[in-house]
């Protein structure tokens, strides 16, 4: 991987609300030049608060946010939002209802060429023909594109997107996602996208940050994070996962599907064995220990529910087609690539 230049760094960011609960509890995050990061977490995990803190719309109660050498938020510092060079796309777009699309894009621009630059930005979003339209005359997708164009127009150091696709239907969502990533890439922007949708996060991000309970629990490329989650919580944020509680023994950990490698863990350490449904391979076997209780198609693959003698149920994803049907007895193999052992 090429050398990454850190543009923005968040260290131990804390934000407490009135009732004492923490929205941010020591969050760390780095944004790298020209790369798109996705911040993924369930609602209430603090991801929107972190985004707003970076924009300067929320103050920090502790920790700091720096852009390069400049301190944006710190113990006694709070740079006003307008003095930070951030562009932000809001969840409901926050287009100014009294201004045309063009005037919205030109809002953050100053000087003689403001109008022309705004028009160029609007044309890049293929909305030149809608320059005179007011926000309520635009479709949802067009509103999103105007909001993005408006945020990009002043050439901000970083661009923040808060659930930018949440208000759109599925087909439009996919199209706009591609278009947005494309636009950000062409602008060479350093971007942070907040989302609660794992597929969306993995589709847009060069770097993924997982958030839970007000802190960032894991960062890495989407592939790294998906393949090697640091905890059961992290694994679950990105999709279906089965957790087996076990104890490390001689560098191995036992599962109902056989022992797996647990390197570098002392004997007796409680561990979680995280098994993706893709790890479970099924073979028809009269004497197999598992029974198929349900079989359905998910289009690209098959989803099986299997249970063992203890009546515990497991999910398995296997390539389609398969001769295995409901009621069949099967034996199970594990693909170690989709299995991770973490300390409990």
């Amino acid at each position, binding site marked *: 991987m090429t050398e990454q230049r850190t543009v923005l760094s968040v260290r131990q960011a804390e934000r407490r609300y009135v009732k004492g609960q923490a929205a941010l509890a020591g969050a760390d995050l780095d944004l790298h030049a020209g790369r798109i990061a996705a911040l993924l977490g369930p609602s209430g995990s603090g991801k929107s608060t972190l985004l707003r803190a970076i924009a300067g*719309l929320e103050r920090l109660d502790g920790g700091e946010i720096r852009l390069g050498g400049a301190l944006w938020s710190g113990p006694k510092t709070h740079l006003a939002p307008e003095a*930070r060079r951030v562009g932000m796309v*809001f969840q*409901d777009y926050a287009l100014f209802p009294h201004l045309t699309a063009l005037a919205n894009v030109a809002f953050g621009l100053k000087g003689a060429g403001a109008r022309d630059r705004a028009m160029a930005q609007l044309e890049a979003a293929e909305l030149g023909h809608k320059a005179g339209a007011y926000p309520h005359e635009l479709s949802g997708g067009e509103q999103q594109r105007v909001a993005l164009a408006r945020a990009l127009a002043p050439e901000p150091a970083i661009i923040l997107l808060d659930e930018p696709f949440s208000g759109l239907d599925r087909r439009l969502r996919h199209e706009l996602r591609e278009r947005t990533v494309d636009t950000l890439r062409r602008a060479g922007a350093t971007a942070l996208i907040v989302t609660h949708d794992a597929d969306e996060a993995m589709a847009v991000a060069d770097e993924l940050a997982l958030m839970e309970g007000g802190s960032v629990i894991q960062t890495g490329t989407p592939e790294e994070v998906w393949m090697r989650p640091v905890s059961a919580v992290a694994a679950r944020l990105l999709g279906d996962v089965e957790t087996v509680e076990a104890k490390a023994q001689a560098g191995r950990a036992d599962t109902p599907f056989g022992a797996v490698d647990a390197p570098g863990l002392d004997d007796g350490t409680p561990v979680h064995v995280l098994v993706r449904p893709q790890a479970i391979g099924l073979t028809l076997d009269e004497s197999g220990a598992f029974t198929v209780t349900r079989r359905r198609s998910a289009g690209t693959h098959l989803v099986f529910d299997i249970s063992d003698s203890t009546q515990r149920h497991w999910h398995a994803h296997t390539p389609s087609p398969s001769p295995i049907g409901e009621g069949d007895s099967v034996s199970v193999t594990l693909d170690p690539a989709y299995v991770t052992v973490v300390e409990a």
Partner: protein
Amino acid sequence: MATGRQTGVLPDRATSLAILAALVCAAPVFAVTWIALTGETGDYLLHLARTRLPVYLIHSAYVAAVAAGGAALIGTGLGWLVARTDFPGRAVMSWVLILPLAVPAYVAAYAWFDLSQAGGPLQAATAGLFPTIRGSWGAGLMFALVLYPYVYLLARDAFTGQSADAYHAARTLGAGPFEAFRRTALPMARPALAAGLALVVMESLADYGTVSHLGAPTLSIGLIRAWSGAGSLVDAARLSLILVAIALIVFSLERAQRRRARTHAASGRHKPAPRFRLAGLQALLAALACLTPLMLGLVIPLGRLAWLALNELPATGLAAAAWHSLTLAAISALCAAVLGLGTAYALRSRGILAIASARAAGLGYAVPGAVAAVGVIAILSGLQSLIDPVWRALTGQVFPILLTGGAAALIFAYLSRFAAAAIGPSEAALSRVTPALDGAARTLGATRGETVRRVHWPLIAGGVTSAGLLVFVEVLKELPATMILRPFNYDTLAIIAHNYASDERLGEAALPSLLIPLVALLPMIFVARYLSRTRSSTGTG
């Protein structure tokens, strides 16, 4: 979201304005209450309670009931027609129907009484069959004709905002069009109707000019008599308290309606229902239905007064009175707009102090003008008795009498009654400025001041201007508070009109009577158009 506090602009200055608004609005009521509870019990009130009080109460109820019934019928019907049907002229009618609010009820009463009295043109034309407009039913009718726009406006917006789904569901469940309307649309609009009716009832209870001209002995009449006849502040305060109590009951009934209604409004207002297109005879009937109240409440009364005014020399002192009316109304409007906007900003911060202040200021609308005036007098005389001894000790002279506190005292009373009316429109306008808009402006490089100037003001200017203009019109129309508080020889248009009318010199009363609605009409047109435009421009958002 818990972010309003961070992104809101000027919360502290705004909260202090909200507190000021609350003080201005609530102080007279508290003063009235204090005087009424601590003053000595005189014979007058006991005598009154035995004799006139039941009459006052019955007639107040009678007038209010006729006014509310009439306004409900006209306002709901027209609101539904404009919201749910389409006919030629509908778009214009949508705002023109609001204009009778520019006509004071007493002005309509002067004209209609003159038209329908014995020997008048209507009796002559109908061979004496047309009844003379007088008494409590006549007064109630006048209120219905000029106050129905309150109901109409709220009903229209409620019907417009209603989703088609409930109505269609009722139709699929076997209800005919009218039954579906009665069982879905009407109950869903009920809180809005209740709010409009509450305003109609309060205004008709607060009125003095109409009921005194048509001979309907309501509580206001008793109050003014107690003050100007018997000259007793304590008795006036006690009658005021009864009036305030009734107003508060009306107010809280309306609140109760609204609270229950929140569940109605929350369920899907996404898809507005299509309008029934009326054609031919139906369209003609719809247009007639709209024109009738306009003729009765606006055109005929003003036409009659214009005709009377043309046949009479202008009353003396009219120019000075007009100037007084205009300046009082303008200054009150400006102050009310500032207080209203400040309170709206304070509410945006969601601070407890701000909310409490806004609530207290909102009570002002339940305070009839005469009561506000009695309250202001109570405050001024309290101040007088505090300052007098100190002043005398310091200067050896008598302190100038505050009671004739002049125009300032009048504006105080007007504001305590009408500042509340300015909060609502400002709050509604400011609610379009979401915290995300502030955030967007700030991240695009705008400072706080710039955000207010470039984003807030363009979005709220119409609402704030409307709020100010509404107060302007109300102050222009106001009579009882002005009667009680005006400095000696200080006339307004309303006072001149009332004085001539009560001397049965309607010819001389005509021009000042006519000038009030004529001056009020232009601001009213702005308000009406604003109130009819905002919904369509924000409706799709």
